């Protein structure tokens, strides 16, 4: 299948491994792992199979066929509340930008996976705990709107501590905003797969994470509404270890599948294939899909 021009703009690059920290300790089994080995093993512990939290661009390069065309990268958060605690909010953002090499808590764009063109969003816990503020909400909403225009399926990887406190109610309202965009995309026949990664909680789990047609989770990811500590404080007892894990949610019927990272890409490709030729699908085999006749709009050039 020919690659549309807007897909070819940016090559997904793995995040360079810092020389200074060549060895990493597995938080689960405490094994010291040589970072290039860890990266080569998709950030899964070579000893205990613990799934490390992934950098958004590592995730993207692990998944996409070739190129990734980011959208919304130019959006930067303001400081609507004039928030200061130990440090002013803009300073926290600056620190996180430096630390994470990301402009915000989610990276959105267009790519193809196993030959399926799609809209892809990957959240990153390294940036403010993956919390959803105005920029995360705006980028997600834009992605679903563009995916709808282009009749592409949407895949979203969530990793979030919930709504971002420092943006107050404007952050909470992003639950409403993303919901509106997802619902419109859905009602128009869009196919949406979410992949819940460690951790997915609060306002993100209670909005677009659980609004997908198919909801997957990475093995052993922590998923829930309330934080573990909040529940323990409320009920004044310790929770069992498996509480709020992906496997627990699967058992309770809240998820479609729990997937190990090494088979994640092939699983996604298979699932994406079931959506081909659906009501709205740019690469629909049925030929009935309306949007194939619509010219693909050019990608927006970041300001």
């Amino acid at each position, binding site marked *: 299948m020919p690659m549309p021009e807007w897909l070819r703009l940016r090559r997904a690059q793995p995040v360079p491994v810092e020389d200074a920290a060549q060895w990493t300790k597995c938080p689960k089994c405490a094994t010291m792992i040589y970072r290039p080995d860890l990266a080569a093993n998709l950030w899964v512990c070579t000893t205990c199979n613990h799934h490390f939290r992934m950098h958004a661009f590592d995730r993207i390069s692990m998944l996409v066929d070739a190129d990734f065309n980011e959208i919304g990268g130019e959006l930067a958060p303001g400081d609507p509340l004039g928030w200061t605690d130990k440090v002013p909010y803009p300073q926290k953002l600056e620190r996180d930008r430096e630390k994470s090499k990301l402009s915000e808590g989610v990276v959105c764009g267009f790519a193809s996976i196993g030959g399926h063109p799609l809209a892809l969003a990957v959240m990153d816990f390294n940036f403010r705990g993956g919390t959803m503020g105005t920029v995360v909400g705006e980028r997600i909403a834009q992605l679903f709107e563009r995916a709808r225009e282009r009749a592409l399926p949407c895949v979203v990887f969530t990793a979030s501590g919930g709504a971002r406190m420092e943006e107050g*109610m404007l952050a909470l309202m992003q639950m409403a905003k993303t919901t509106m965009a997802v619902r*419109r995309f859905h009602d128009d026949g869009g196919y949406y797969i979410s992949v819940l990664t460690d951790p997915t909680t609060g306002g993100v789990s209670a909005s677009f994470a659980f609004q997908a047609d198919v909801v997957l989770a990475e093995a052993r990811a922590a998923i829930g509404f309330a934080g573990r500590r909040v529940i323990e404080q409320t009920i004044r007892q310790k929770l069992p270890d498996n509480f709020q894990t992906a496997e627990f949610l699967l058992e*309770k019927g809240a998820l479609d599948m729990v997937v190990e990272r090494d088979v994640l890409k092939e699983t996604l490709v298979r699932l994406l294939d079931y959506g081909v030729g659906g009501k709205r699908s740019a690469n629909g085999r049925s030929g009935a899909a309306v949007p194939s006749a619509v010219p693909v709009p050019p990608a927006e050039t970041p300001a």
Partner: protein
Amino acid sequence: MNVIVEREKGLLQLEQRIDELKAQAAQQPVDMTAEIEALETKYAQIQREIFGTMTPWQRVNMARHPKRPIGSDYIAALDQFDELHGDRHFRDDHAIVGGFAKLNGRRIVAIAQDKGRDTKEKVYRNFGMPSPEGYRKVIRLVKLAHHLGLPIVTFVDTSGADPGIGSEERAQSEAIAQSLSELAEARVPIVASVVGEGGSGGALALALADRVLILQHSVYSVASPEGAAAILWGDAARAEEAATRLKLTSDDLLAFGIVDEVIPEPIGGAHRDAAGTIGHVLDAVDRALGVLSAIPSAELRERRYAKFRRIGAASA
């Protein structure tokens, strides 16, 4: 300890003293007018001091005032109410009360979060913290309203969705996510009124609406001040500080475009004139429904989309 209740104590004593003096004055020939007037002036002065400019933390306490009208009070003030129970799956959640109703002759579907008044009722209502079944009842009622073309009226008053084990087991997140999704899609007017506490996603799940009204001293927040303090600083005791920073008062929310209208409360708070306050809220709801009902449903949905689409877009 509720700081408003504490501060009210002095006032209530004064109030009692004035009443006593008035009663005495009526019975005795002694002229106590000057004394009564002095006390009344003092009363008004203290009242102004307490309620003239309230800090965000005082507002939080006012929103949680034990005498503040609660969800069921608003439901009871409707012309007619036929409660519909249950989520059709697991159980009936008493933290959410909903059903068919009439407001000024208009047929509506009314949904309220209810905290309960006395201890027994609070437990019965789970302190107004809905479980997934509560949100699934909301989903069902929203679908019903959509099906019958009835406008939806909600009353928001919760510290947040229930954070218990059972709620997690039955997918609280999914229930809230789907409640939001149903409200996004419903092709009928939706008016939400934040009448007490609007705590986080558990409140928003009833407030994705065409018009969002709020009582003057109600608060609506990304997390409860205690929750935010715990998340930010690992110390729920810093709730007062969090309340100040979160910009959760009705004035802040109006300035941010998150609420559309602030309904004034009598001096001293809604509980000083519960019936009057409830009447003002219902009048505002009725006015909003009047405006929204004239809008074709397709346009209504476009407007709802645009309303939430633009929040936070400007700063981005």
